[in-house]
């Protein structure tokens, strides 16, 4: 990258404070464009290696779901890799015909599954997921469905979407889904930008969601792997769900175990039509390309996608103010731990910056929680803080591992003690400056790769405004000691907090530790 391409500005704030030599800030020179169909485009040229990182963000996440189809936004992310009319099958028409037949069998299966749930509610069936619970009719339908899958497989070109990219030297293809946004990204050699435009516009224009039901099973295995089989996964999910009363953040991104196996392809189709329309999508390119050529390609390829007919509905539900502390006591296969979550503010709120600075005053190895709880009273072995401002609402979390034989109660009150100090006294200037110096240095560290810049733009745009990448900095430097006191008083109240206390589940008697000779 040519340094001169990046505008440099001196931080007059740091100069005035006189504590360190002036830091020089670097703007990310983003070009913004819009296509007639409403799709937006962000371009950043960087010419230091012969590759381009490309991605796009759909402004949709699990918060846009409803009970019954929780997990559909994430399942959808998986389906976007299943191909197009011409990629993934040898015979599009026959493929479509088989998919239609599959859907007919699936609606019969859904009727049987409804009966199974009714039997389970009566107590006639103990475990819905046990394969022995299936009725003969359900088995028969599933066998018929499997035959249709086998017939479709004859026409499939397995994972062709991935194969085309891989053969062309693309790397790091992946995607992610959060409560608020869904992002897709990849890196291609600099001479393959047109391939990227072809592939990404085709999967938005002519997607085919084949292998829908086996992918649903894959997602359930993902749920088992991340949530159900890990020591704290299930508990974290339950706690997160407890934090939110009215807001859709109360269900997990991966979806409830009841919903994942029940989502129909029709529901996924309608989800795509609503939320993957071009006016709900932003493209981002970072790397070794010429912006004019790139825009010519983008207009040609993405401009052909028709504008969606209905605007995606706005999310109107806000979290009702919390009236009283909520608490969860859990026995888990894990070391004792205390996690406290307060409701705060969404992305873009003016208090977000003070909360982030406050977080760093508390966290880190020279922060107050580490000095107070780990080095000082020695009640904890580790402490973390996490200010999280999502698109629609935010939280602030402090979590500490208990140093045995101390108790979770001791750790909890030690945390409140440190937080109360912030309400009562201003953070000294030197301590505040230390934190700000790190925000200033991070401004450079974040620019270490094309992909890093791309991900920041995807996130910021998905949360509400990509300009945060260039506008956030001065706001952090402007935070005063008074701001920190004010937000500490405002958000860290007893009625606004949620507390999870974990203690180690006692081992069953037969597993007690006894050396074997």
């Amino acid at each position, binding site marked *: 990258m040519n340094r001169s391409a990046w505008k440099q500005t001196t931080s007059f704030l740091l100069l005035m404070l006189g504590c360190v030599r002036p830091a020089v800030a670097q703007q990310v020179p983003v070009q913004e464009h819009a296509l007639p169909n409403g799709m937006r485009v962000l371009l950043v040229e960087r010419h230091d290696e012969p590759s381009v990182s490309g991605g796009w963000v759909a402004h949709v996440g699990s918060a846009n779901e409803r009970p019954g189809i929780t997990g559909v936004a994430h399942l959808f992310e998986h389906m976007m890799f299943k191909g197009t009319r011409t990629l993934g099958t040898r015979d599009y028409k026959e493929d479509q015909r088989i998919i239609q037949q599959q859907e007919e069998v699936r609606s019969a299966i859904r009727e049987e599954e409804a009966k199974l749930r009714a039997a389970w509610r009566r107590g006639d069936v103990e475990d819905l997921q046990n394969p022995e619970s299936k009725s003969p009719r359900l088995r028969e339908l599933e066998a018929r469905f499997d035959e249709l899958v086998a017939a479709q497989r004859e026409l499939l070109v397995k994972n062709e979407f991935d194969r085309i990219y891989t053969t062309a030297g693309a790397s790091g293809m992946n995607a992610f889904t959060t409560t608020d946004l869904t992002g897709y990204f990849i890196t291609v050699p600099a001479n393959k930008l047109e391939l990227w435009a072809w592939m990404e516009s085709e999967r938005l224009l002519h997607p085919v969601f084949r292998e829908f039901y086996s992918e649903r099973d894959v997602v359930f*295995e993902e749920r088992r792997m991340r949530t159900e089989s890990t020591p704290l996964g299930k508990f974290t999910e339950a706690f997160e769900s407890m934090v939110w009363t009215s807001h859709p953040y109360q269900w997990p991104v991966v979806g409830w175990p009841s919903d994942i196996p029940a989502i129909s392809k029709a529901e996924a189709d309608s989800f795509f039509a609503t939320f993957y329309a071009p006016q709900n999508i932003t493209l981002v390119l970072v790397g070794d390309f010429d912006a004019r050529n790139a825009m010519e390609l983008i207009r040609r390829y993405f401009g052909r996608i028709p504008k969606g007919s209905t605007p995606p509905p706005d999310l109107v539900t806000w979290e009702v103010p919390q009236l009283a502390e909520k608490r969860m006591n859990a026995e888990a296969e894990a070391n004792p731990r205390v996690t406290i979550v307060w409701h705060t503010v969404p992305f873009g709120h003016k208090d977000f910056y003070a909360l982030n600075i406050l977080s760093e005053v508390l966290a880190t190895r020279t922060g107050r929680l580490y000095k107070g709880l780990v080095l000082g009273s020695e009640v904890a072995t580790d402490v973390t803080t996490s200010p999280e401002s999502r698109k629609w609402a935010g939280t602030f979390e402090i979590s500490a591992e208990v140093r045995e034989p101390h108790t979770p109660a001791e750790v909890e009150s030690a945390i409140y003690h440190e937080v109360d100090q912030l309400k009562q006294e201003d953070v000294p200037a030197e301590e505040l400056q230390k934190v700000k110096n790190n925000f200033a240095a991070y401004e450079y560290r974040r620019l270490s790769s094309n992909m890093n810049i791309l991900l920041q733009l995807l996130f910021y745009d998905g949360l509400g405004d990509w300009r945060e990448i260039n506008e956030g900095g001065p706001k952090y430097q402007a935070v005063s000691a008074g701001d920190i006191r004010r937000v500490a008083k405002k958000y860290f109240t007893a009625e606004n907090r949620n507390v999870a206390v974990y203690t180690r589940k006692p081992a069953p008697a037969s597993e007690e530790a006894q050396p074997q000779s």
Partner: protein
Amino acid sequence: MKVVQLPTALLLTVVCLGCGTTAKQPADRQAETPQAIPDRPEKLEFAPLDYQPPDPADYRVQLRNGPVAYLASDRELPLVDISILVHTGNYLDPKGKEGLAGLTGYLLSKGGTKSLSADALEERLAFLAAVLTSEVTDTQGNLRLNLLSKDLDEGLAILRSTLAEPRFEQDKLALRQEQLLQLMKQRNDDSANIEARDREFLAYGDAFWSNQYETEASIRSITQDDLRTFHRRWFHPSNFVVAASGDFDREVMREKLESVFADWPFAGDEPPAIPTNAVFASPGAYLVNKDVNQGRVSIMLPGVMRTDPDYFSIVLMNRILGGGGFTSRIVNRVRSDEGLAYAASSSFPGGVYFPEPFVAAFQTKSRTVAYATSIVLEEMKRMASEPVPDAELETAQRSMIETFPRAFASKTAVVRRFADDEFTGRFQQQPDYYKDYRDRVAAVTVADVQRVAKEHLESRAPTILVVGDKLEILKGTPEHPEQLQDLADGPIVDLPLRDPLTMRPLPQ
């Protein structure tokens, strides 16, 4: 460490000062003469991309005071990044003091220096927004400093005193010991950790050095004197390799590094060779019972060294089998076709100091463990029994060739890669490794792939490790007749969990 924390909130705590270069542009008009868009991507044509990898000789500097350094000036950002690799490792832990190397590595940068207490050092680094970390892993020590270039001289002074005159403060040692004991208590909590540990036991044997785990007793026995002795023995410039990149002039940096390593206060030893006396477990299925609803499976076979003459054929064979993501057979069958697993893959890494095993691994619900295992075994057999189609090999080859420039994506990546090669001996053994890399990939044939599959996947029956709910796993599923006991060429062996604090087997 402050700056270590920032990236965890990476995408929300980004800072930038001064704004306004972005130009909001009006909606763009359609291109005036649109070219036709082909119905298949193969019909697109691309300009050639000429790429020559960097030459290690252009970066290599032999310092007078011992180390070889790889230096790259990069003026893009006002940052400097320095890594020191040290010839040491957990393999040098004395018997009964397991964990000593790791503790020494951690406390090197966290226990103060001769002139600065641990707390004062941490405060100063935090104020400078500098990152200083250190660790000792199985076969390597690492010290890394990343800081603003305006602070380079102060940073190098800290680097020198950290490496040459660490204080290893007693209270910081005691704290780290407590933290390690807490970590140890979690050894059996997560089935993934159990699987990772038992893989090592099966691949290398209980007696191998890498399976000598730290215990409560070994950690408690370690004293400040042990740390000092370990440090003075191995942390000497003659055991260092340096990588530095960033906002500096090469010659100036070279001279600065000369003074960092001058007049070392003690003489070190040359570390002994890394022992290679591993023993691979017999074929069969090994089962660890753990109450989770998903079984974790590792199918293992003895591996190779990365200097093996067939290394490139083996890498390509593995990519086709399970190492190539969605273009590989295991993913296609276990994941896409059957929906049996989210993660499924195989790896066949060439070992640097001793052969590392082939592992095909996946996680699936308890009842389908046997069925999914049968599919992976079938695909392994098919690699040996049938030649792969040309197109499959070509996908794997083109991918390796075309992504090759990504290995050198930044100056930091370049010098770290070359320093690592210097450290592990590749630079001396295979000086043209990168120059020849793409030709060697392209030279592999379909016959080569089948030959190495026969040689390495069929030489013996695999060792299969399963961690999960034993009773459920052994039930299998009514839709598929496969049973784990029929798939394993050998008995099903129950592996015990181990006491997390002593690592002794627990009664079952």
